[in-house]
């Protein structure tokens, strides 16, 4: 039988609605970004405004249904991201999903945004467990271990800034506007690592990350040059920064693979679009005797989108996970931490 899930994602800046068939086929995946709304309304839409989601969600839903060529009577279930994210933004998706599920007598599936990011990679190949996921975005930097298909455990996390946030902040120092990930990545391919920024916590015997010290070292370097009236090469600064970031991300992931042997390694989240990260992880895995299969979602599924929520919801549905009409947004929702990860924080 054909399983059709209507999925909603509104945890941050993107409003997205998708129809996913059997967890594997994307029939539609409508994403309203700020850029589109800037074009449509010819003005500046505040970066974080629930109003933006309200304006977009009905249109996105209609477009998703039309493009998929399905009616509400065809649907099996409705799924929605209920956290983590911005509370006002999350509430729009949660309310829309509840309304449609209630009106059409459909089961409601609550999905953790980070489960969605992980399952974006399942469109590349079916998952095999155990699996390790490196989830990297503007708000998250986590190593997540999956022993089975809906069992997520954080075994490593950032102690301060998320990696995407570090890109945005050093981008600002370089005069690159938000979001800075892509331009910095491109710039980093044109320079050399001449500044040798610190690789924080890389030698420590845990799986946690830290990017705050790197950010400070970067700012200090630019600050000193400014005081002396020198101009540093932006390309060399970007390369030095990105090399440090990649050493940390790849180094910690390899460490995790030693203690947690897996069949597959997923890299997902907005920073998974980074070309340097893709290349470096690929090369690093090639040095292992028995490397896991590397799964990285296509670029259009790296950022926030509802198709990834539909893929995760397919598994959640099979696991019997349902929400009732009291479902609320949970801005601080998190996977549980492993005992080792908790001990490392203390």
């Amino acid at each position, binding site marked *: 039988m054909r399983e059709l899930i209507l999925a909603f994602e509104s945890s941050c800046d993107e409003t997205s609605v998708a129809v996913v068939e059997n967890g594997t086929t994307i029939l539609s995946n409508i994403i309203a970004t700020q850029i589109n709304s800037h074009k449509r309304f010819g003005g500046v839409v*505040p*970066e974080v405004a629930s109003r933006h989601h309200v304006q977009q969600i009905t249109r996105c839903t209609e477009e998703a249904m039309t493009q998929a060529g399905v009616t509400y009577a065809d649907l099996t279930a409705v799924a929605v991201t209920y956290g983590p994210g911005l509370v006002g933004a999350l509430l729009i998706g949660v309310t829309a999903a509840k309304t449609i599920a209630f009106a059409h007598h459909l089961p409601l599936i609550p999905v953790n945004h980070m489960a969605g990011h992980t399952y974006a990679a399942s469109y590349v190949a079916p998952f095999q467990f155990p699996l390790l996921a490196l989830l990297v975005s503007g708000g998250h930097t986590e190593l997540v271990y999956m022993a089975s298909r809906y069992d997520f455990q954080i075994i490593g*996390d950032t102690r301060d800034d*998320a990696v995407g946030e570090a890109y*945005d902040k050093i981008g600002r120092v370089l005069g690159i506007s*938000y979001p800075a990930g892509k331009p910095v990545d491109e710039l980093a391919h044109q320079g050399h690592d001449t500044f040798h920024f610190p690789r924080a916590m890389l030698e420590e015997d845990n799986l946690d990350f830290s990017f705050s010290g790197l950010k400070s070292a*970067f700012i200090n370097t630019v600050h000193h040059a400014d005081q002396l009236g020198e101009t540093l090469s932006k390309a060399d600064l970007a390369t030095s920064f990105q090399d440090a970031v990649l050493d940390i991300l790849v180094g910690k992931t390899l460490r995790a693979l030693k203690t947690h042997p897996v069949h597959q390694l997923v890299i997902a989240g907005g920073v998974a679009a980074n070309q340097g990260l893709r290349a470096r992880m690929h090369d690093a895995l090639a040095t292992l005797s028995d490397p896991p299969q590397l799964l990285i979602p296509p670029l259009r599924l790296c950022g926030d989108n509802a198709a990834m929520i539909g893929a995760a919801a397919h598994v959640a549905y099979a696991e019997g996970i349902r929400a009732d009409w009291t479902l609320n947004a949970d801005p601080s929702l998190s996977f549980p931490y492993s005992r080792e990860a908790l001990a490392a924080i203390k």
Partner: protein
Amino acid sequence: MREIITHDAAETVRLGRALGQLAQAGDVILLDGDLGAGKTTMTKGIARGLGITGPVKSPTFTLIREYQDGRLPLYHMDVYRLENGGAEDLGLDEYFDGDGVSVVEWSEFITDLLPPTYVRIRIARTDSTDDTRRITITAHGGDYVRYEDVAFE
């Protein structure tokens, strides 16, 4: 006004801890300083002073992180992303009027939304070393003078 020099991040955390021990329900603490000045580092200290033991991560992306496991709730806000507006929808006054301690980074972006009384902590780099910070504590409203009187060597 009170001025304190700290010489590294650990000392900034120690000062934050002392300030956190002075915090009372409903307090609003503004943290000003450039990128990388140490605002989140200071917040880590304030959290420890409130008895919060877990990780204190940057709230830049999520705008607000709440910590409930201390002697008072801590609401750590970072409105860095709201330079061009959008903060009106966040319901910040509910936090400011609440029974926890609000720490606000980049408060210059939400001047119109701030309560009438608060303590402002400025963290500035100095010309001496990379890690030295000049920290200025200014009470706005009588109740907040206790922060200026913090016991710290």
